[in-house]
């Protein structure tokens, strides 16, 4: 075996546990023992094991029950069932439930060595799958934006295309959907990538401050202007200016910005001589600007000037298939930052994350994971770790078609069955072939 692995022996007989311990210590593996299924699950919450040898006959929780729980919570852990009383039925059941092998004890020394070779091979395959998953995740990421859902993939396709021109772009989406990340990605992919990216939250600034921040001022322009100051429109010098919450900007400021966009010149406050500026403008808003125009709060001419291309960022509840991917990413991030070894989410907890409505979108998910990781006492995040999330009944914003409802329900059932098509087909009362056709028709993808 090329790589030393971590092994747990689960057997109620001390003599067997000790015999295994001595044996595997001689092979140089890291080995621990548990006297019951409950002990084993407790250990698994805190330590990761590559391989479990599980005795079938144990008081409390038998080996088959433990196998089921291990395969559910820690699918990458290889389980070998051991027993003193062999029966074909239990062997078949164990193998069906995902056991890698089934051994009758005592076994011949060469048998154990063959099993370990098989385990090494299986572990190598698992490592390769992990590597491929990692690669897939990189494909699902675009400049730190994470998502494999169709709307996000469309945005990923759009970014390199729109990045090449100087066209103004309006990024629309609810708060916490990652509008600034998309703006940064456009900048990073653009010919202006080597120049500054300046982001301003227009909504957080009073008009006068925003004006001086954008245009700069000369000494003595107003009380407190003790020295000349360049505005962001100058500082950005060939780069990208990102104005977030553009819907909050006053009509006067809209006029000023419109003029700058058309003339590519600014005049500092308290000065008369115009300065040429070169920047690309990206704006973002969570508001419905067309409604704002209709209600007279936003200028139509400015709207058309900033909205040459519109990118609509979906809310997280509209791309729930991305929740597991995002959750894994944030768990990795915060486990690393907090040096806590949290690397699993229980099935129930993941179901909660996928059914929650996420009004605060990705930012809320990130905060929830950070909080859960910080407070978690085990390496598995459980449903209880997210007790602060109070799922609200999801009400559709507008009436939906039967087709949309069907797609959503099929996806829900598939997720609930962990994409076991046979089980899902049984619940939906359709045959497997029909379900496969529906999956294809609706473009459903396994998370």
């Amino acid at each position, binding site marked *: 075996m090329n790589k030393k692995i971590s092994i747990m022996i689960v057997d109620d007989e001390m003599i067997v546990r000790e015999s295994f311990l001595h044996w595997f210590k001689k092979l140089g593996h890291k080995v621990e023992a548990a006297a019951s299924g409950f002990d084993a699950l407790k250990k698994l919450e805190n330590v990761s094991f590559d391989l479990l040898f599980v005795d079938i006959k144990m008081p409390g929780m038998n080996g088959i029950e433990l196998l089921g729980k291990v395969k559910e919570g820690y699918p990458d852990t290889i389980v070998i069932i051991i027993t003193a009383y062999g029966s074909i039925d239990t062997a078949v059941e164990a193998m069906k439930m995902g056991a890698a092998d089934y051994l009758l004890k005592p076994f011949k*020394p060469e048998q154990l060595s063959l099993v370990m070779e098989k385990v090494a091979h299986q572990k190598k395959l698992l490592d390769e799958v992990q590597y491929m998953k990692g690669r897939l995740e990189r494909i699902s990421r675009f400049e730190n934006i994470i998502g494999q859902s169709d709307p996000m993939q469309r945005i990923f396709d759009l970014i390199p295309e729109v990045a090449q021109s100087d066209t103004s772009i309006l990024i629309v989406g609810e708060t916490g959907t990652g509008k600034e990340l998309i703006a940064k990605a456009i900048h990073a992919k653009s010919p202006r990538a080597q120049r500054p990216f300046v982001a301003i939250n227009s909504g957080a600034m009073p008009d006068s401050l925003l004006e001086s921040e954008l245009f700069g001022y000369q000494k003595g322009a107003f009380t407190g202007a003790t020295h000349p100051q360049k505005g962001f429109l100058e500082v950005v010098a060939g780069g990208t200016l990102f104005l977030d919450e553009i819907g909050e900007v006053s009509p006067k400021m809209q006029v000023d910005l419109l003029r700058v966009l058309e003339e590519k010149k600014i005049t500092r406050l308290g000065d008369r001589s115009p300065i040429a500026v070169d920047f690309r403008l990206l704006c973002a808003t969570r508001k419905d600007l067309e409604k704002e125009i209709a209600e007279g709060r936003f200028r139509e001419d400015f709207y058309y000037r900033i909205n040459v291309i519109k990118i609509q960022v979906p809310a997280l509840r509209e791309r729930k298939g991305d929740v597991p991917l995002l959750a894994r990413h944030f768990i990795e991030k915060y486990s690393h930052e907090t040096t806590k070894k949290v690397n699993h989410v229980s099935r129930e907890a993941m179901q909660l994350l996928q059914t929650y409505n996420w009004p605060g979108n990705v930012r809320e998910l990130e905060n929830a994971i950070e909080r859960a990781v910080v407070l978690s006492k085990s390496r598995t995040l459980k449903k209880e770790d997210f007790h602060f999330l109070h799922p609200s009944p999801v009400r559709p914003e507008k009436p939906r078609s039967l087709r949309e409802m069907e797609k959503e329900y099929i996806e829900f059932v598939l997720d609930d069955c962990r994409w076991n098509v046979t089980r899902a087909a049984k619940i939906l009362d359709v045959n497997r072939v029909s379900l496969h056709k529906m999956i294809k028709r609706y473009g459903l993808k396994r998370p």
Partner: protein
Amino acid sequence: MNATLKPIGVVPLGEVPEIVLKSIAAGILGYLKLNTELLEPQRIPENAYDLVRQQYDAGLLLNAFESLALEKHEKVIGVLAVDLFVPILTYVFGEARQGGRLSLVSLHRLRKNSDGSPAPLPLFLERATKVALHELGHLFNLIHCEDSHCLMHFSGGLRDLDKAPPYYCSYCSLYLRDAIPSNAKNPWI
């Protein structure tokens, strides 16, 4: 020869041919340059016999002989003619605990070839010496080696044992030199 270490004791447990004990002692001296001493035979405790398996429990034997006065010897190799088992395995050629004082070598399965024919005496002696050196490696804390051309490679059966060389690979040899510090000054590999 390493004069700073206490000798390695070779003790027959029950009736064991003297030629085997001498062959093991010669192997330790030849391959490890460690002094050896043949000890008085000891009786095998009856409680180590498992009536169901009709074999001797290696773990119980190790526990029984660990309590012997072994202070005069660095490590002790117990040699038996009977068949040994550990609870998880049908049989073992030998048994030792990592870093322990005493190891066991069973001659029972070394006398015959895989096809049941009797093994020639030189092959039988070579097998016994290899098992003794392998178990002695464990007593000096060596683990099983990935190199199939090393004495510390795990032998699942007689075929593996016959394929294994009677010496340690360079990695295990280096480890042994560290495990037996005074040897580093007088390298024997």
